[in-house]
């Protein structure tokens, strides 16, 4: 029976927790994932699918793993390599100069002029002024990949428990010995908390303050269009891709900060606040797709830490707990973040990257009023008077 003695319990069935569970399970560790809803059903399955994060210490491992993931998992991720980013606004014509400072050595990329962009991106128009082509990175299908992790972990013996809400932790000898849930008690030798926006509230139950703020972001999706040679195409303030079915799926623009997110609430719905702004920019970026019909929109809630950087850390107390929040950039890095979490749980240290700068300790001196100071607050209704209507 699952209620006693899996050796590792992972709280959170998003991509980070699921990848960690898969890595642990394929290392022969007994692992149980507790998910309050359905795996990959929140921000993990509702994002741009980008796999190109050269700012991260996990970048090299991200790049090494993605081309292998379909085979390693045994399920499709729809990963495709390469990206093109281009601009249609004169003020951003030289945007590649900023990239030059950031892309690590050893990864090939080139600058494109407008004509070269149009050759590679048939839906682009005469307004394309400059771009870059990255011969690394890529994109994948977020929901399919999330489910692939869950299924592959199961194939290695992991248990995936959905619709299980965590209520608290049981301690014994200074360590977490069990997780208390809506479905009973799950004993554990080690615990991973990778619960997205809920990570802070769960860590607080263990006496740790993980500063984070949740916010909603939105994307739009069009009807399918003929496939372009490369699907990983964005720019002009948008992120996204053309799916392998041909839909254009793009996000970007204003987010809405939330006060908090409940531990067991349903996923958010799109607010409509930015749908029209997204449609405008997709039509500007890809004018030959301006006729394409928008058929749905997505929303997801993601958390950010005050500096926007992840926390990936094995705590010193309780010392059998590993925390992970990817601070709103989790999907693409998930093959590598799962590997790092596996290493921290099993070996106490990440085998392939230094993660010391991602420790919680950096927030020790953080102002208690940091959300107000950073202006990370929910909006107030605009000063129009509802009263003037009646």
């Amino acid at each position, binding site marked *: 029976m699952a209620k006693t003695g899996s050796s590792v319990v992972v709280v959170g069935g998003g991509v980070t927790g699921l990848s960690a569970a898969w890595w642990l399970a394929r290392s022969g560790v007994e692992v149980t994932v507790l998910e309050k809803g359905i795996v990959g*059903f929140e921000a993990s399955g509702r994002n741009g699918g980008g796999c190109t994060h050269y700012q991260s210490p996990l970048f090299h491992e991200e790049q090494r793993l993605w081309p292998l993931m379909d085979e390693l998992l045994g399920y499709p991720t729809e990963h495709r390599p390469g990206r093109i980013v281009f601009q249609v606004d004169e003020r951003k014509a030289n945007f590649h100069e900023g990239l030059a400072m950031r892309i690590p050595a050893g990864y090939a990329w080139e600058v494109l002029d407008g004509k070269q962009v149009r050759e590679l991106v048939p839906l682009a128009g005469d307004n394309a002024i400059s771009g870059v082509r990255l011969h690394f990175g890529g994109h994948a299908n977020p929901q399919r990949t999330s489910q692939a992790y869950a*299924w*592959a972990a199961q194939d290695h013996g992991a248990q995936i428990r959905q619709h299980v809400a965590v209520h608290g932790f049981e301690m014994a000898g200074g360590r977490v010995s069990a997780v208390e849930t809506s479905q009973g008690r799950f004993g554990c030798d080690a615990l991973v908390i990778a619960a997205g926006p809920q990570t802070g509230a769960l860590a607080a139950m263990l006496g740790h303050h993980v500063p984070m703020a949740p916010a909603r972001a939105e994307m739009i999706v069009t009807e399918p269009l003929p496939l372009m040679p490369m699907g990983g195409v964005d720019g002009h303030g948008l992120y996204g891709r053309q799916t392998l079915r041909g839909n254009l799926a793009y996000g970007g623009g204003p987010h*809405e900060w939330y006060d908090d997110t409940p531990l067991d609430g349903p996923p958010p*719905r799109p607010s409509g606040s930015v749908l029209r702004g997204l449609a405008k920019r997709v039509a500007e970026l890809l004018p030959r797709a*301006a006729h394409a019909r928008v058929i749905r929109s997505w929303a997801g809630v993601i958390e950010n830490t005050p500096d926007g950087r992840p926390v990936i850390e094995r705590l010193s107390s309780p010392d059998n707990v590993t925390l992970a929040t990817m601070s709103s950039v989790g999907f693409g890095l998930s093959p590598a973040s799962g590997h790092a979490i596996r290493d921290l749980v099993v070996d106490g240290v990440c085998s392939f990257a230094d993660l010391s700068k991602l420790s919680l300790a950096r927030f020790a001196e953080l102002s208690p009023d940091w959300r107000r100071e950073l202006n990370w607050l929910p909006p107030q209704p605009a000063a*129009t008077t509802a009263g003037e209507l*009646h």
Partner: protein
Amino acid sequence: MKLTLPAPDRFSIAGKTAAPDERAEIVVIGAGPAGCAAAIEAAKAGAQVVLIDENPVAPGLIGMDVPLHYGGRATAAVQTPERLVERVLEANPALGEAFELGVDVRLSTYAWGAWVNGPGLRGLATGIVGLADETRSWTLGFGRLILATGARDLNLSFAGSDQPGVMGAQALHALIARYGAFAGRRLAILGTGALALDTAELALAHGLDVVALVEARETGVGDPARLAALAARGVEIIAGHVPLAAEGGPDGVTGLVLANVAAPERHRVLVCDTVCLAIGAVPVIELFDVLGAKRTLVTERGGHVPVVGADGATSLAEVFAAGDCTGLGSNAVEAGGAAARGALRSLGRPVDAELPRLVPPGPDALAYHLDWARALLSTGGPEVLACLCEEVTRGELLAVQPPRYLGWSSNAIARRDLGTLAEDGPLDQDQIKRLTRACMGACQARRCREQVALMMALGAGVPAQSIPLAGYRAPVRPLPLSVLADADEPAAMAENWNVWFGIVTQWISYDDIGTEREAEQLRAGMPY
């Protein structure tokens, strides 16, 4: 370690929510009997009313089976919607009355979204509806919103049902009675309930041939007297049968092959140019779902419906509802009036509280739909498409197969199906949708949402009631990017649009954190 924080956020939605382009005290969506009654009642009470209806819809949408399942049987008359306006007014005298009373009537106008202030939407000062026509979109603010969005067609597919000539009963009613633009002559009608009887009687009244009413159950389910009257007029009532395949030619359907449910190898053929699905209708609740109104499953009223009080109040203070969208078989005109009075009262206007007479619930529609789906599955087998746009077969749906265009196969995925997925927790249609792509198409799942849920229940052996509704999301009508685009975007949006959160520290290379290179990049700002 020193903490480097980003500058205060100027990229959030705060301060970027545009005021609505126009405003009205009462906005009514849907100009059927309930919506017109609501608009008339509100106008008589002196309210400022805007009444929105999408009909006549653009020919492009008719071709996509939006909002009804027209099935390629509209005449060329629908190519010029502006010419159909006269017909729409003739068919619906209440629209003229509303117009006379000063209601601002907007036809051929789509309501593609609606929002009120609430969790996740704290910046809204007033409720808004997203509207569009063929060339642009805009927003309309409201004091109270009354949704009277009616019902749409329930589609259950069979071999050949993705060709012209297979259509829904609501669409047939619209083409015959509203537009005078139906291209068929000879119909086979599926179903024997009230909807099928209404459909057959309407068709006969308009001089069309009705070959037969086909029923999956052992006997007809509707009023025996009306069934007998149809039989007396030469309409055959064929019980215990379901369509096996629609035969077709260049112009679509030429005949319908039926299978005997009890003995599936026994077939018979009907000669017809149109197969009309009149098995059921579905309350149109898209906007309620986008708004986040509380809903419930009422199988005696057609399925998932908003929770609505007798005065039309929904779980959202600013939103009222009336007519078929609140559950099939309501007293639409009285309910429309009551919703208007409820809305006006909630705004502080002195109106009385006369409530509509309740109509007794109908038979269990979900059980009836499930019987049809079971019979179609057992006779037609797994090769039939469950989702027409995305070309997902029933078999692929039941096996939770990734879409064919991925060309994926593995032993691992071959072991997965609806049954194994159900072992991980209750099935969810939105999850199945993302894995198989069933319901992901350009018709926005109008032709497959219900049948996919039914197939899921049958495939996993779970009650149909246990399959949660796949959520609706804006835009609830498929609108071109160029139309949905906000041409008059607020300057604050344009100036402070960022690709992600605009947290500059987030994008500094890890190796550079805490170095002079970090400071240099912070000075340079975001690369794009």
